[in-house]
């Protein structure tokens, strides 16, 4: 016992002596709500401040990796959650979070302004916040320059005319890569999707580990100016690639989109459930929803929120994206990734 006290005393001494970060530990206020979210979460400080002014609630943001890591963090800590409310569990991982009982029911008064269209759960444990559709992007200038018609459909990507032009992300290590794989499963069905990938492989598809490499380095339409003019990215990406003439340099192929909905919910076991609900309301509010395109490159789930000017031209919401039910994804995801690995010989 003396030993253990010694250990603790030593640790405490070291921590208090050494740490200069101790000052900004802004937790434990009665009016602080901890929002657990993914790495892509971003919101303008003014909007967060305005929320604090109106409600007296300070939002303490904790980020936990991508949507998958976030979901798994929530599952592992469900007995003693690290926050009060979570945002960023997407339709690919929603099933796991729901079946593990991570979220408590909460019906936001804002949910009937559009988010309910994307409801995933009859108990109202998750509220849709935004849509982050994954689509094939092309470098329009490259096709004009090479006098080649732009590809339109999944099948075009396997057309020998577009040989060695496509780069995709590994679905095992990248979330847009997984969404694209799910899109091909939705399009070609359980029976046909592996054949499609064999055709892509024969057509010289390049597989990169992550979006950073595929989009930032291999794709010719980004600032990396890589060699390949077709890439798997987001429906919104062209809005970030506007040239000096105000025109987008790239475009998303709207027939190749897969819809990912991102959800927020109150964490079961949060001691602050009522205030956590207020934060969900905030995420669905007009004020916050208007910021999601510019800050997170996603589309608002709320109806009637205007997209930024550049988006209406460069990155309209895909009208008819593919999607798979959350439970189907949950049941198939791991197997599809394994099958994908073996059919690509990787």
């Amino acid at each position, binding site marked *: 016992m003396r*030993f253990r006290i*010694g*250990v603790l005393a*030593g*640790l405490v001494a*070291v*921590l208090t002596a*050494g740490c*200069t*970060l*101790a000052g*900004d*530990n802004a*937790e434990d206020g009665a009016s602080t709500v901890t929002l657990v979210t993914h790495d*892509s*979460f*971003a919101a*303008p*400080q003014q909007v967060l401040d305005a929320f604090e002014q109106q409600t007296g609630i300070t939002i303490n*943001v*904790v*980020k936990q*990796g991508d949507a998958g*890591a976030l979901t*798994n*963090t929530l*599952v*592992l*800590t469900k007995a003693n959650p*690290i926050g009060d409310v979570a945002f960023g569990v997407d339709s690919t991982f929603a099933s796991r979070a729901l079946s593990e009982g991570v979220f408590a029911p909460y019906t936001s008064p804002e949910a009937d302004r559009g988010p309910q269209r994307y409801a995933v759960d009859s108990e109202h444990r998750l509220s849709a916040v935004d849509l982050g559709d994954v689509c094939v992007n092309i470098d329009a200038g490259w096709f004009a320059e090479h006098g080649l018609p732009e590809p339109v459909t999944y099948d075009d990507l396997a057309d020998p005319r577009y040989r060695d032009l496509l780069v995709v992300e*590994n679905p*095992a*290590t990248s979330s847009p890569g997984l969404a694209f794989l799910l899109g091909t499963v939705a399009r070609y069905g359980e029976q046909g999707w592996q054949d499609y990938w064999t055709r892509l492989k024969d057509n010289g598809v*390049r*597989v*990169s*580990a*992550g*979006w*950073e*490499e595929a*989009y*930032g*380095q291999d794709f010719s339409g*980004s*600032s*990396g*100016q890589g060699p390949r003019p077709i890439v798997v*990215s987001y429906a919104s*990406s062209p809005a*970030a*690639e506007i040239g*000096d003439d105000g025109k987008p340099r790239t475009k998303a192929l709207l027939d190749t989109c897969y819809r990912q909905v991102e959800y927020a919910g109150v964490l079961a076991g949060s001691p602050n459930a009522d205030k956590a609900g207020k934060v969900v309301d905030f995420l669905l509010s007009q004020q916050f929803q208007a910021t999601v395109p*510019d*800050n997170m*490159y996603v589309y608002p789930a709320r109806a009637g929120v205007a997209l930024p000017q550049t988006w209406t031209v460069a990155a309209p919401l895909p009208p008819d994206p593919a999607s798979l039910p959350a439970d189907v994804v949950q049941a198939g*995801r*791991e197997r599809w990734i394994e099958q994908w690995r073996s059919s*690509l010989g*990787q």
Partner: protein
Amino acid sequence: MALLARPVSRTGLGLAALAVLPLGFLVVFFAWPVGAILRLGFVDGGVVAALAEGETWRLAWFTVAQAAGSTLVAVLAGMPVAFVLARVRLPGVAVVRTLLLVPFVLPTVVVGLAFRALWPDGGWLSIVLANAFFNVAVVGRTVSGLWALLDSRAEDAARALGASRWRAFRTVTLPALMPAVTSAAAVVFLFCATSFGVVLILGGARYRTLETEIYLRTENLLDLTGAAALSLVQIAAVLGALVLGAAARRRREGALRLRSRRETAHRPSGGEWTVVGAAVVVLGLLLTPIAALLLRSVSTPDGWSLDGYRALSGTGNDGTLQVSGWEAAMNSLRTATDATVLAMIIGVSASVLLVALRRSPGRLARGVGESMDAALMLPLGVSAVTVGFGYLITLDALPGDLRTSPLLVPLAQALVVIPLVVRTVLPVVRSIDDRLRQAAATLGASPARVWREIDVPLTSRAVVAAAGFGYVVALGEFGATSFLARPQSPTLPVAIASLIARPGQLNSQMAYAACALLMLVTAAAVIVIDRLAAGRVGEF
């Protein structure tokens, strides 16, 4: 104190007191979290089945092979550099000392992208080279630390007796250097075996290691059983490497006559110029990706521009970051300072303890020393994601729920720095001839005076070198930091990764400018620390 196989004495109590901090830290912030996450994997059985899969062993094989290859390349490239740092008196050696550490702090995602740009389809060879790129510094700094202090008269005698330069090196100098070489190689091996970003980016979808697979199983699939099986294999491989390293060290061990660098450094002559030339080539290769990054930071599709550097005072496109690039740099400095102070306290006390255990007559005590030595190294060989998820399920039991506390970042960084401190300080402490101490004591010096007059001067260079190196490692640490850092206080590497993960010209320019800033901060920190070292140890 039965462990020490002798009655409780003042020394015994002193050792116990020394042991409390390193062991306590290791248990609370490593063994307990890792054990807890592995236990979750064992709960539903299936670990044995996962171990029996051929895939597991293919992953293990590739992991060990690429790590061994990377280690070999790093050692071969690092030795001439170590020679230059230790023995050569030429203008510019101090600059080399500083530059050498720059690669170490670069975020793996950036280096991975740089290698990929220079060599698009390099495959496993580019993985090996990129891993070596990060680790030449480990070999150069660790080996030169001992080499500079080595008495060169034995080598001179061998030369006078007619041995060739190579033979004198091989039969006299190299054996004396072996403790440092094996120490460095063990550390490099561990770094490479758990290298994540480089393998992921350069391996594309083709090359996978235990580390990338553990990450995938834990973070993405929540297959804790599969991850636990792979973690066991990883830990076994790491322990195997540590045992081999320890065996190699034991054979070579012995007290050395240590000298100050001032006496041993000289202008190169004759064949030594070849070695200097080799070191120059190595440095040139190390600088190539760095130069590519610097070029990238000032070039845009529309020509040269300093926009990226100007953007450092902002937060990127539409608030990609919550703080500016400068604030992220300040966070990096603060966090790394905390981590280094903590790691030095723990690492130096652990080194002293290990040497004492080693020298003690009891067999058991020596065994305890060896096990503790391995245990201290283990954090380098265990996946950051395993530790990170382990924290999530354990640290809420500590007062103050550390799981989302900013305090956790320096603690996790210290975990990575401590093994480096031990590996740098231990060989020097160990090589002090005990007869020096005995002589001092015979002449009437008190234990404190012996410590002050013998141990401190002889080890202070290694201690300061360890601090400098540890600081740089903490500055560059990415795996655990990215898992634990909070958006209000990202470190520079974490900020760079966030910038790169977003579309837009400005973000990408700013990311590369932030890399340049990180290199600058690193170089400045190394210069300051090396100055301190020169000031303090120059006189003995």
